[in-house]
């Protein structure tokens, strides 16, 4: 006779009449496979924890976003936001789909070049471009988005020195009803600074002003904010054409669309609250089309969408290390991935699932990572199935910002695999090793030896 699966015995207090502070309890369906590939086998082959990215989901999401915009507007161009996930395999999927590169540092710029992106299809954003970076970007005809006046003057000097006509756009910040305003970046719209910057560029006569750019923030749930932003950039474009007879090549609306993750503490899940690509596209394109820009001069619409294009495609799978009872009786589950790997657990109540079949039984538990630090909370109080040591978990929607903001702390960053269109895994970033870390270090001669 075969024996039954053992579930940890538990007892829980019933709070009759009181609505649960965790909202409606929902059954957490296990996720055993990603794109037909067994998570358990992936962990066996590539180790635990493990980042898994789905090529299918990346392409599907990209095509959905592209269709939403291109079905409403004649000229649409996505530019992949490298900082969101700059694993080369990920970038190249977006490039294969037709996206340009959007970078914010010399490092990212070189990464895009090495991936084979032509210089003139790289958008160079951000406040941190060195003179060397700028020179290279100018000679490659890259699209330089000017962030502040110091940079504007640097570029004017360089254009004379190099006898080149740099292609530039002005980054504009503005009040679109989202607070705080990200006014640290670019030139302000309301106080006239952006218009001043435009005039300064035009007066230089050595720069080619080809675009206007804004990035109003990140994880934005309001489509109306985008309609307002598009309207404000359009009004600058109209003013520019009126004064200088110059029709802009593009308007770049930046990134910021919310992904389907749930913000920490939000009552409703992100799957219910995040607007669709169609909603964002409708707001932006109607903002542009209803502006006074002449219909035959409608500029290309550039989008630097990051998290909404990649979050869904990323998974972090791993293993339960231990379960514990805290001193006040609350439960704790310790897993082998902490906030060092899952930086986004500071923002999100991530959707965490068991990999193996579990019973309906759940308990109020907190999921801790393995770091020896109090802040290492992957998910605070959630109703979670009764996983035991050695059981597996998988965390959904981790594709954005984790593979770029993860920290190397007390252990190595793990393998990352990409499942191809057939679900076959490819290792795309090797687990670090002691050599990886030590190869960056030097020990002065007098510190090489010791006697204990």
């Amino acid at each position, binding site marked *: 006779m075969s*024996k*039954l*699966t*053992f*579930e*940890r*015995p*538990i*007892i*829980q*207090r*019933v709070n*009759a009449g009181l609505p649960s502070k965790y909202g409606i309890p929902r059954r957490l369906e296990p996720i055993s496979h990603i794109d037909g590939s067994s998570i358990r086998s992936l962990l066996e082959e590539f180790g635990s924890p493990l980042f898994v990215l789905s090529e299918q989901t990346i392409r599907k999401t990209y095509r959905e976003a592209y269709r939403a915009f291109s079905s409403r507007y004649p000229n649409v161009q996505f530019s992949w936001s490298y900082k969101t996930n700059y694993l080369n395999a990920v970038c190249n999927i977006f490039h294969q789909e037709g996206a340009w590169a959007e970078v914010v540092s010399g490092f990212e710029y070189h990464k895009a070049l090495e991936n084979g992106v032509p210089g003139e299809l790289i958008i160079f954003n951000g406040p941190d471009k060195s003179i060397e970076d700028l020179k290279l970007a100018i000679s490659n005809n890259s699209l330089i988005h000017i962030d502040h006046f110091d940079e504007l003057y640097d570029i004017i000097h360089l254009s004379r020195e190099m006898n080149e006509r740099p292609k530039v756009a002005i980054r504009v910040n503005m009040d679109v009803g989202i607070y705080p305003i990200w006014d640290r970046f670019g030139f302000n719209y309301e106080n006239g600074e952006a218009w001043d910057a435009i005039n300064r560029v035009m007066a230089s006569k050595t720069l080619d002003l080809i675009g206007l750019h804004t990035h109003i923030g990140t994880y934005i749930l309001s489509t109306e904010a985008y309609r307002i932003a598009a309207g404000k950039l359009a009004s600058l474009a109209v003013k520019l054409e009126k004064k200088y007879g110059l029709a802009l090549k593009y308007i770049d609306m930046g990134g910021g669309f919310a992904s389907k993750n749930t913000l920490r503490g939000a009552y409703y899940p992100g799957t219910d609250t995040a607007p669709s690509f169609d909603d964002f596209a409708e707001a932006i394109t109607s903002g542009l089309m209803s502006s006074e820009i002449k219909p035959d001069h409608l500029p290309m619409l550039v989008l630097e969408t990051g998290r909404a294009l990649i979050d869904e495609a990323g998974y972090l799978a791993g293993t339960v290390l231990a*379960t514990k*009872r805290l001193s006040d*009786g609350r439960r704790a589950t310790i897993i082998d991935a902490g906030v060092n790997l899952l930086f986004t657990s500071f923002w999100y109540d991530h959707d965490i699932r068991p990999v193996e079949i579990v*019973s309906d*039984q759940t308990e109020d538990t907190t999921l801790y990572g393995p770091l020896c630090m109090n802040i290492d909370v992957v998910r605070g109080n959630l109703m979670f199935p*009764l996983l*035991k*040591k050695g059981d597996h978990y998988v965390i959904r929607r981790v594709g954005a910002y984790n593979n770029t903001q993860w920290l190397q702390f007390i252990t190595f960053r793990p393998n990352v695999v990409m499942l191809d269109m057939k679900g076959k895994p490819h290792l795309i970033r090797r687990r670090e090793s002691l050599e990886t870390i030590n190869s960056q270090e030097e020990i002065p001669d007098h510190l090489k030896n010791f006697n204990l």
Partner: protein
Amino acid sequence: MLKIKNNIAISDSGFVFDARTGDSFTLNTTGLEIVQLIKEGKDYQGVLQVFLDKYEVDPESFERYYLDFVATLKHMNLIEGNGED
């Protein structure tokens, strides 16, 4: 020897009611089985044997989860006696 307190009512579905405080609790299947075995007067060895016969579990893991469970029952004031038999 462990003993479920007198004022505790336990239903076959795993519902637990503490008449003294008015608190109620739920047990999962394995939790209920353990409580029933304790009620029948089984000591740890007795409970362990039942579980080893019935479930896919090794004695060491079982002991760990059993002790943790019993400590929780104590924490909730449902049991008297010491954890060790």
